[in-house]
């Protein structure tokens, strides 16, 4: 962990020397309810950042705003120096920020390998006119397939290659979704509750996969409830409550942060924050 040690100031909205994603005064209200109201937050490059907070804190809404699945009422997100204001979700994805979903979106009636192939970016055969003539895309398709098979092997899904994705277990679907996201070589991977519904045995391997993303030079931002997991893999933690960023810091900072403890205890008396007890 020491190689990934960080020494940013542990306050909400703290500056990072190399931020990949900068969010400025982003606000999203649904009717009278302000779901997200983030003044300023920076996500460090090539680090694993956890986004935590009690239920209803606005984490998933914030995720949707970052990835173009929802549009903020005001404010701007800057990814890699480019404003993401009003950019539709598919273009955000193409710019190198790929997300997964809290409820996995495995494409059930497509085979695992087809799920994987779909993830690849810039496919020639995805144009209507070229699609009819397979010689125009066959070479690229073969390369995509090779890459997909490598990733499937890495994520222990190689034996499921030709099964329909609907036949996978919940944990396998999480793995497939993560592997599929990697097909496009994203710079930043956004994981919405990667551990939800995953059995403990698979959890450990998922953790290793997430750590491997950092080793490959990618940035990871993930939403999670499991504090033990947050402590184990994240370099930096951002805490949301009631739509705002209430704290930032290393996992150790967060465990002893009174604002965080209050935010959780306000709604969850029994949550194990995973900090030094």
């Amino acid at each position: 962990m020491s190689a990934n040690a960080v020494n940013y100031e542990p306050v909400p909205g703290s500056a990072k020397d190399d931020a990949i994603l900068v969010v400025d005064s982003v606000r999203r209200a649904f009717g009278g309810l302000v779901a997200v109201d983030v003044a300023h937050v920076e996500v460090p490059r090539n680090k694993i950042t956890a986004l935590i907070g009690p239920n209803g804190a606005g984490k998933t809404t914030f995720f949707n705003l970052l990835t173009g699945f929802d549009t903020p009422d005001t404010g701007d997100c800057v990814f890699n120096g480019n404003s993401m204001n009003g950019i539709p979700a598919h273009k955000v994805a193409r710019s190198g920020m790929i997300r997964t979903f809290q409820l996995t979106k495995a494409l059930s009636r497509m085979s695992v390998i087809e799920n994987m192939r779909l993830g690849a970016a810039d496919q020639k055969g995805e144009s209507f006119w070229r699609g009819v003539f397979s010689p125009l895309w066959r070479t690229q398709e073969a390369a995509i397939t090779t890459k997909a098979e490598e990733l499937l092997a890495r994520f222990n899904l190689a034996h499921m290659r030709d099964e329909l994705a609907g036949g996978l277990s919940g944990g396998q679907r999480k793995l497939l979704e993560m592997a599929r996201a990697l097909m496009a070589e994203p710079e930043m991977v956004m994981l919405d509750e990667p551990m939800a519904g995953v059995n403990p045995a698979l959890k450990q391997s998922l953790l290793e996969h997430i750590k491997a993303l950092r080793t490959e030079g990618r940035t990871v931002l993930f939403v999670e409830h499991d504090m033990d997991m947050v402590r184990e893999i994240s370099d930096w933690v951002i805490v949301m409550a009631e739509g705002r960023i209430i704290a930032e810091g290393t996992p150790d900072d967060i465990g002893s942060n009174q604002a965080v403890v209050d935010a959780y205890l306000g709604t969850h008396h029994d949550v194990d924050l995973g900090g030094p007890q």
Partner: protein
Amino acid sequence: MSWDLILSNSLYTAVSANAIAYMLVALGLNVHFGYTGLLNFGQAGFAAIGAYSLSIPISRYDWPWPFALALLLVSSILLALLLGIPTLRLRADYLAIVTIAIAEIIRLFLNSVRFTWLTGGNDGLQGFTRWMENLNPFPENGVTLWAQKVDGYRLWLMLSGWVLLTIVATGVYLLMRSPWGRVLKSIREDEDAARSLGKNVFAYKMQSLMLGGFIGSLGGMWLVLDKQSSQPQDFSTTFTFFAYTIIILGGVARAKGPIIGTMIFLFLIQFVDITLQQATRTTPTDPTPLLPTWLVDQNNFSQVRFIVAGLVLAILVVVRPQGIFGDKREQAFDVR
């Protein structure tokens, strides 16, 4: 009862030019519904546009037929844009509502008295098939296939229709095996997932709507070429529902599905119809029909075919819910 006649006529119905029209319309709908998951309930509207893009310019304005075909292409794409732009960003149900409404608007417009000068109103339009008759290489009195007489024009329309259908179906088959088709299927499964992987979902849905709509228009054209008359009542919502029946029968999202589905559907209906027609017939020499008149008689047998067809369809859905060519595994995961 002449079984030669019954069988040859039913078989012919299943492969005739009229059947090809159904196959094309269903093939287009399969692109929408089967592959992309678009709930288009207005496929009859695309067929009507195809039929009248041919018949109006030719019978009213004496256009050369290649221009009419170009108009068919353009107008089917325009209709797809008209349907798609307001609805494809919304939930699937809205497309269903808008398509069924637009298809009905098209039919009522074609049927209206005010525009009779253009569309021929309820009587429809005739006299737009001369060019197709001129292209016919077969002798006019045609041939007899088994016990079924087929005139030269219908034979020509049937054979050229099969060529057209083969080209279109092969094109669709190749497209659906391509990465383009893969994106369509991913949209059917979960459009947010497709979006999260960088696919422009709206553009793909639009392309799907255009392609399937154009194929449906070709179907409408073949229908009126066969009837040699284009009439609004042929393009009621029933036509769309027949097309749905056909693709569910043949197997959704299968290239062969619409073709085999049409054959079974039309064979069944024709077979029941013509059998009952013969079984309820009375002649001066034989005044008692084969079937008792308290059960069914000459005046009501024509409705029975739909009862029987519905029954067979219901049985099929129970016994083989995935259709003739469908994949049982896929059906099992269809949780929507």
